[in-house]
């Protein structure tokens, strides 16, 4: 199904556009895209709008098929897609609603360092990160996971590697789901996926994954910033990475294994990449258990890299990381599916929530928000693209009411990789970044050229919409100082 200008769209308010359920045959609910006029203009002719309509055809879908303002084309679900299905009503789980990079996510590490005093050492610190953290294609890590060790990581995520000296217990307290989803089963992860993952835990990967040294440039919500341990001028480190080859293989396996399954359950799909199975089916459960295992692998991955980041800083600055105050602020997933409870039609229901390029954003008071943040809401970390600012937000009640506790995850590409490479011809992206005060190290030239700032939409436009829509509130803006990429 490709987008045609004739898919009916109705603007609801300044932040939302509706696709009414009679716009496309088979839709069970309306679609709602969170976007203002400007963002919607850039979305305009893109087939991602049809993808929102396609998701609305899934059995058991509840309320709306949603898309966040960073919406762009994906496989099955658009990136920025959110959908919840009711397992008691034949609701399905769809791997396309999670993505190939299961639990791609972001974590933010704070510090007691000030950007001003660190300026002369940013290059050395970035070089140290580049040495310590394996990144790029073909870069294996120091951790080799096989057999029972790998099973343990797949079952227990962050905790499994924290116990192996790659962090402290408090790191798990400020990780979404405490760094592990219940209901994982390593036995559901294929041998091929295990082989792909065994040398990759604690490695950054390539593409749009990065580790960035940043400074808190501006604080917008002083109370929330204080609760998160953040203040203007402070140095932070952000890690953006996922489940590496293991997760990618789990998704590929699932799309193959589920071929033919929708038909067997009488499910008619407008797009093959929306392949799915009822949550309450052996096929659905098999994927869920494998997906949770991959999600746990990703949390372990980011946890190991946290340790390596702390090690890198400690070596350069010649102090232990604890003395540098390098504690974890929070870690969020933005490609995942979880069973979460929401009020639907006056009753509390356990729903299968898909977030594909979308982040959980629980409000103040929610029991799953760590006690230290419960007054202000769950931290939401929104990475900007390379060379541009990132944001920290906190979840708001509007998200629970309207988007199954979800908000955006980032910016979204504007230029194709080829167009970005063409635009970079004759230029040194590395030098241009340096002129903007960003010291960049990348394993491949393509890693810089394809990921240049102009290749992405402006994340500021995206976070403005989710704030205006009441989904989350902006706490502070972070400016990059140094970045490493694959």
């Amino acid at each position, binding site marked *: 199904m490709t987008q045609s200008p004739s898919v009916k769209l109705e603007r609801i308010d300044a932040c939302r556009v509706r696709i009414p359920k009679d716009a496309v045959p088979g839709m069970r609910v309306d679609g709602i895209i969170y976007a203002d006029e400007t963002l919607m203009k850039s979305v305009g002719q893109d087939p991602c709008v049809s993808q929102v309509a396609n998701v609305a055809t899934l059995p058991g879908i509840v309320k709306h098929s949603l898309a966040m303002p960073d919406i*762009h*084309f*994906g*496989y099955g679900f658009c*990136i920025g897609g959110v959908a919840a299905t009711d397992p008691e009503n034949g609701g399905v789980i769809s791997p396309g609603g999670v993505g*190939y*990079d299961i639990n791609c996510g972001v974590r933010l590490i704070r510090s007691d360092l000030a950007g001003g005093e660190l300026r002369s050492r940013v290059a050395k610190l970035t070089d140290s990160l580049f040495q310590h953290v394996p990144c*790029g*294609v*073909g870069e294996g890590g120091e951790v080799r996971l096989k057999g029972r060790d790998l099973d343990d990581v797949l079952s227990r995520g962050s905790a499994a590697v924290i116990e192996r000296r790659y962090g402290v217990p408090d790191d798990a307290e400020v990780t979404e789901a405490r760094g592990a989803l219940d209901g994982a089963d390593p036995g559901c992860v294929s041998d*091929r996926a295990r*082989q*792909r993952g065994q*040398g990759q835990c604690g490695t950054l*990967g*390539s*593409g749009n994954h990065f580790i960035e040294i940043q400074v808190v440039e501006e604080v917008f919500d002083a109370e929330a910033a204080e609760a998160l341990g953040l203040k203007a001028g402070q140095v932070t480190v952000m890690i953006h990475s996922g489940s590496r*080859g293991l997760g*990618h*293989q789990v*998704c*590929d396996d699932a*799309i*193959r294994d589920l*071929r033919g399954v929708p038909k067997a359950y009488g499910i008619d799909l407008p797009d*093959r*990449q929306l392949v799915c199975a009822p949550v309450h089916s052996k096929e659905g459960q098999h994927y869920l258990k494998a997906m949770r295992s991959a999600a746990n692998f990703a949390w372990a991955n980011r946890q190991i890299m946290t340790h390596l980041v702390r090690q890198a800083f400690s070596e350069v600055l010649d102090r232990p990381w604890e003395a540098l105050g390098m504690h974890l602020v929070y870690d969020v997933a933005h490609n995942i599916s979880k069973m979460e409870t929401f009020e639907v039609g006056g009753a509390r229901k356990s729903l299968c929530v898909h977030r594909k390029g979308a982040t959980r954003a629980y409000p103040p008071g929610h029991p799953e928000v760590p006690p230290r943040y419960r007054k202000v809401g769950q931290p939401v970390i929104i990475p900007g693209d390379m060379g541009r600012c990132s944001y920290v937000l906190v979840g708001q009640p509007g998200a629970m009411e309207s988007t199954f506790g979800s908000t955006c995850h980032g910016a979204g*590409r*504007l*230029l*194709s*990789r*080829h*167009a970005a490479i063409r635009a970079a011809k004759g230029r040194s992206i590395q030098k241009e970044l340096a002129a903007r005060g960003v010291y960049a190290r990348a*394993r*491949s030239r*393509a890693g810089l050229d*394809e990921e240049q700032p102009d290749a992405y939409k402006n994340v500021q436009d995206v976070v403005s919409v989710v704030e205006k829509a009441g989904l989350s509130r902006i706490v502070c803006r972070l400016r990059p100082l140094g970045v490493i990429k*694959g």
Partner: protein
Amino acid sequence: MEPARSGYEFLEHTADVKLHVWGPTLERLFAVAADGFYHLLGELTPAGDGERLRIELQAPDLTDLLHDWLAELLFRFDTHGQCVEDFFFQEITNNRLVVEGRVWPVDAARSRFDSGVKAVTYHGLDVTKQAGRFEATVILDL
């Protein structure tokens, strides 16, 4: 001048890569698909002579077979740092292929790596035959 009878090209795609391949036979189609895949990965230098290998794949249809062929190459590269070359298709039908070739480990220090491929997607993947030419477009998730 006549267009090449077989070949590959990369088409525009916002976030990932679209590999368009064509050839007069299935053997050529699958061979240029491998060429395109390795081109995307970068400039790979072998470490040593490698060893002989045999790959056997079965799939419900030709589209899945092409997916599985590229997925196999990706798996070998991502997991074992290996490249497959000097191959020939002992057998290739709509449902099965048997390949004999050499597999060699990549010399990371003397190679240039360009793009990290996460997966071979099924999106828009369809092997067609028209006017004596096989054709397909594969989207690779980066």
